[in-house]
């Protein structure tokens, strides 16, 4: 099963490589990864999506917790959560395609953020499945380039991941 694990870690050099290294060292999967500072300058938040059965996920969270730089973590998929990913896509937009692209962008509630005579750059947010669906819809027209941020997430309700 797919899991989204969010980690608060020390904003120290080398902390990221310890987390990433752990995954390769112990043969765990990384499907996507994003990391950025938080409102607390001493902490970074790292979100990783990974796939594994319960035993593997248990090992992943235990080993992550063992890293000295990891302060706190939560497996968001254990409860209700909001999951978002942002994607920028360049698609071919020539002649009749321009309207077709625009229509699809509207259906997906995406935005065109840059325009040239032959290319539209589209920005779209949503869960990973929505982004995949958009790419599929665009593929007959011609996807030129894709930049995805990887999944970020937060739990619903009063539960917070903080110190």
């Amino acid at each position: 099963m797919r899991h989204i694990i969010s980690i608060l870690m020390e904003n120290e050099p080398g902390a990221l490589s310890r987390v990433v290294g752990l995954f390769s060292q112990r043969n765990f999967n990384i499907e996507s990864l994003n990391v950025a500072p938080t409102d607390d300058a001493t902490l970074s938040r790292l979100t990783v999506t990974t796939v594994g059965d319960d035993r593997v996920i248990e090992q992943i969270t235990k080993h992550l917790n063992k890293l000295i730089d990891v302060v706190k973590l939560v497996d968001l998929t254990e409860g209700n959560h909001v999951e978002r990913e942002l994607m920028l896509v360049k698609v071919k937009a020539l002649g009749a395609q321009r309207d077709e692209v625009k229509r699809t962008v509207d259906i997906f509630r995406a935005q065109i953020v840059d325009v040239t005579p032959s290319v539209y750059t589209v920005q779209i947010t949503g869960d990973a499945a929505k982004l995949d669906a958009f790419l599929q819809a665009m593929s007959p027209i011609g996807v030129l380039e894709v930049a995805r941020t990887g999944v970020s997430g937060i739990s619903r309700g009063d539960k917070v991941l903080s110190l």
Partner: protein
Amino acid sequence: MELLSGADMIARFLKDEGVEYIYGYPGGAALHIYDALFRQDAVKHILVRHEQAATHAADGYARASGKPGTVLVTSGPGATNTVTGIATAYMDSIPMVVLCGQVASHLIGEDAFQETDIVGVTRPIVKHSFIVKHPTEIPTVLKKAYYLAASGRPGPVVVDIPKDMTAPTERYEYVYPKKVKLRSYNPVTRGHTGQIKKAVELMLKARRPVFYTGGGVVTGDASEALTDLVQRLGYPITTTLMGIGAYPQRDRQSLGWLGMHGSYEANMAMHHADLIVAIGARFDDRVTNNTSKFCPTAKIVHVDIDPSSISKTVRADVPIVGPAGSVISEMISLVQGREPANPEALTEWWERIDGWRDERRGKLYEPAAPGEPLKPQQVIEAICEATRGEAFVTTDVGQHQMFAAQYYKFDKPNRFITSGGLGTMGFGFPAAMGIKQNYPDDDVVCITGEGSFQMMMQELSTCKQYGIGVKIVNLNNQSLGMVRQWQDLNYKSRHAHSYMESLPDFQKLIEAYGFTAIRVEREEDLLPALERAFADKDELVFLDVYVDPREHVYPMQVPLGSMRDMLLSKTERT
């Protein structure tokens, strides 16, 4: 207020931290630190002949004394030479701090002379690592390093120190930090009481219980408590290779150690048990054999200080995260005044176990016929007798290691010192040096083979410099015995590169360093040679004992089988 350079802070910190010995080797990036060590006499530095030996010596010191070992090396090759030793300590959870010189900060990343990203290289084999960014950080970073190395599940910590951090011209205020706090690191101090109660209920109800304990009991200084608990209940106990001595092996309740080359009765008891109480052990593949066939009828209680060890390879029914010592003490207080619920079942269980013991009694190995070469097993038994079972025994890796574990009987913890997890050839001799310095009045024997010994034999020079009187027993079978054994069993005796041609004349080699060496080929020469070797505690003596190269280590678990599937000799199988 005291102003010190970074280098002097390191020397001063080590003194304030109570470090007695540093094992190391100087070089460019570490020279400021070496100069600071030269100008003090509280901390003794032992100059090894190869940095790997420094880590093994510090490791041996740590295992015997329970205190963290300290290593000091320079950047680049000095640092990379420590990698095997760090990995050895990591796999066996040994507290160690490795101080590495590094090129000056402004050169980092430029492929400077003797530059290596040692923090990157060692990342998967350390508990944690630090790079010093400013000289004022040195006291806190070092305090954190020692605290992390020794607390919780111990392990090696690397501290990378760029040369400009130790420059003698820059001085800063030094205060010894008595305590450090890390917000993300809070090792557990006791187990969950509810879980412990649950475990104790299972223990009292068990019909065929076995204690299975490991290195965690030894490092957790919990041997006495364990012995108390096991004797109160009267249950059988087997230990891992790392846990040898945590319970007296000569006691009737001890089944010896378990696993690939463990005792027949220990493996049989594990397989047939209905309850396994695992404490400070990690269900390693050399113990469990095929996990899908592991102990099919047993419920499993697993106590470990490291939550990631629990249910890693074998699912625990009652997981308890906590240090061995406090969990065992809590178990004792819950057991107090209560009796096991099924005394008849336990009597029957002991009858079966004694039956397994009797099956193998007197059949463990075939003694040498007159005129035949000595058997390695009898050599170990003779060493055990000559040292009354009280020596510190270190080993290298291979057949001699298994024979030492099988035939030397240990009644105390921290006495059998071996590279269990990583299986590092070359470990034994430098580890013995580290132990001997801390226990000068004890016998310290390195049981080795001619393959392993040649990996670290340059340390004879270190022993000469510091007068370190370890005893070395070389079980010389003129081949890489364990490799050869596998080739006999799995490769139709095609001995691909497992022979040792062109062996040196060990006697001359040892004598070249000014030590005594005795060559032993016949049974009648063995005892006099051992007597001579152990006559003087301060003298290094090397026994080159020629043993039968055809001998195999048995029992040996059959690959992919359960715990009870074993080869018992070249012709017998369970």
